[in-house]
């Protein structure tokens, strides 16, 4: 694994270029992982170095959407943490859809499609897919198009399949996709009604009235300042009694919104918003 590496000064230069040119603010992303993502972008696009990337960002506005797509880590797995998905199916989904129409559910993290399709499959198997309104946060048009085409990078189909089996799904995982030219294409009817919301890095335009927000493994890419800022936005969008889910190694402890939630399930990091 010999790879190209950039320094902290170069990382900050790229961040400044993006802020000055496009108004997207990456200054409060966690440094180590953001630096790694930049190295990944530089290598995969054949840029000579950080200056090469800065040149492209400055002189080619169309490239920026591509950059936003590539800088965001992929989710890489469907039904990651199957026990979480079982808990949502067995304990939460009927509770939040009961007696209401078009319950709003939100894949709040910048997902590459895996979380969205997992939730859609869960809803379909519960007979609730047409009863809810799904929202999905995206940072780039490229990601929206990719998800809408069903061509999500399921490089490791056997991992997804094993997760689905542990989720105890009703059918075979392979019922949800077909293979065309070696590429898995997922059943796009699952995501037909999804409302894609394009957001920038600070989440300043979020939907309201949300009963379940999945925000897994995203604050790991933030520093504490951005973590508090974005969690505050999410907290405002979730209704009292609604749920917010973090990654299993993320916590609301020591964040600015910890007093607005109770811990509903510690192992899966499911939080429930207080009613007062």
């Amino acid at each position, binding site marked *: 694994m010999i790879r190209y590496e950039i320094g902290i000064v170069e990382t900050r230069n790229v961040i400044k270029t993006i802020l000055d040119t496009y108004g997207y603010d990456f200054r409060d992303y966690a440094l180590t*992982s953001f630096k790694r993502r930049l190295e990944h972008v530089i290598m995969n696009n054949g840029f000579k170095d950080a200056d090469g990337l800065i040149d492209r960002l400055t002189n080619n506005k169309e490239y920026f959407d591509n950059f936003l797509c590539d800088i965001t880590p992929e989710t*890489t797995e469907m039904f990651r943490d199957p026990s979480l998905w079982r808990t949502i199916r067995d304990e939460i989904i009927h509770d939040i859809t009961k007696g209401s129409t078009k319950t709003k559910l939100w894949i709040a993290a910048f997902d590459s499609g895996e979380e969205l399709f997992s939730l859609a499959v869960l809803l379909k198997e519960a007979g609730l897919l047409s009863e809810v309104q799904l929202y999905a946060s995206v940072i780039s048009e490229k990601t929206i198009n990719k998800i809408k085409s069903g061509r999500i990078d399921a490089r490791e189909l056997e991992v997804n399949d094993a997760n689905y089996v542990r989720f105890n799904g009703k059918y075979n995982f392979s019922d949800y996709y077909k293979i065309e030219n070696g590429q898995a294409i997922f059943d796009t009817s699952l995501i037909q009604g999804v409302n894609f919301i394009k957001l920038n890095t600070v989440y300043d335009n979020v939907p309201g009235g949300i009963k379940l927000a999945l925000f897994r493994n995203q604050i790991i890419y933030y520093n504490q300042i951005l973590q508090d800022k974005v969690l505050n936005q999410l907290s405002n969008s979730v209704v009292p009694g609604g749920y917010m889910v973090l990654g299993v190694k*993320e916590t609301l402890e020591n964040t600015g919104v910890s007093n607005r939630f109770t811990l509903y399930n510690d192992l899966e990091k499911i939080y429930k918003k207080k009613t007062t």
Partner: protein
Amino acid sequence: MYYKAVIIGGSAGSFQVITRILHSLPPTFPLPVLLSLHRLKHIRSGFVEALSIKASIPIVEPFDKDQIKPGRAYLAPANYHMFIELGNKIALSTEEPVNHSRPSIDLSFATAAQVYREKLIGIILSGANRDGAYGLKKIKDLGGLAIVQDPAECQVKTMTEASLKLTKADHVFSTQEIIKFLQNIKSTAP
């Protein structure tokens, strides 16, 4: 020479070695011990408990942004990469696997090397793939101390041999020698 941290990478065949090392460290061990070990990704619990049975220092699976403290061991959680971040903190990541591994030893070692530089001890143990070889080189290149378990003693030699091929290690040690070396580390700070 004083050090700020020890980082240990291992895979197949390393469990017993790690257990012996953690068992023999004094409870007053003055450094944090960072453990980047390959493990089953879908089994989240049990590993830290198994390692803790005989360990003389507390072992935790850290949360993202946990502060790293001396005298504790930090085990990379299942299905996450574990980075060391400036400010002496843990940073976790779900980025794609590296060397088919998440956690990747290379990533833990390389990020720890950036933060601790010459004040880091890196140790590669038995393992069945090449993950860790690049990370150990990174530690050595930035002035840290590179230790490799003697391949002759390893249940699976691939990882240690790959490491020795890429890096001129400071020490090639048996498990007993690794233990002795660590026990002799007295304190961190001047």
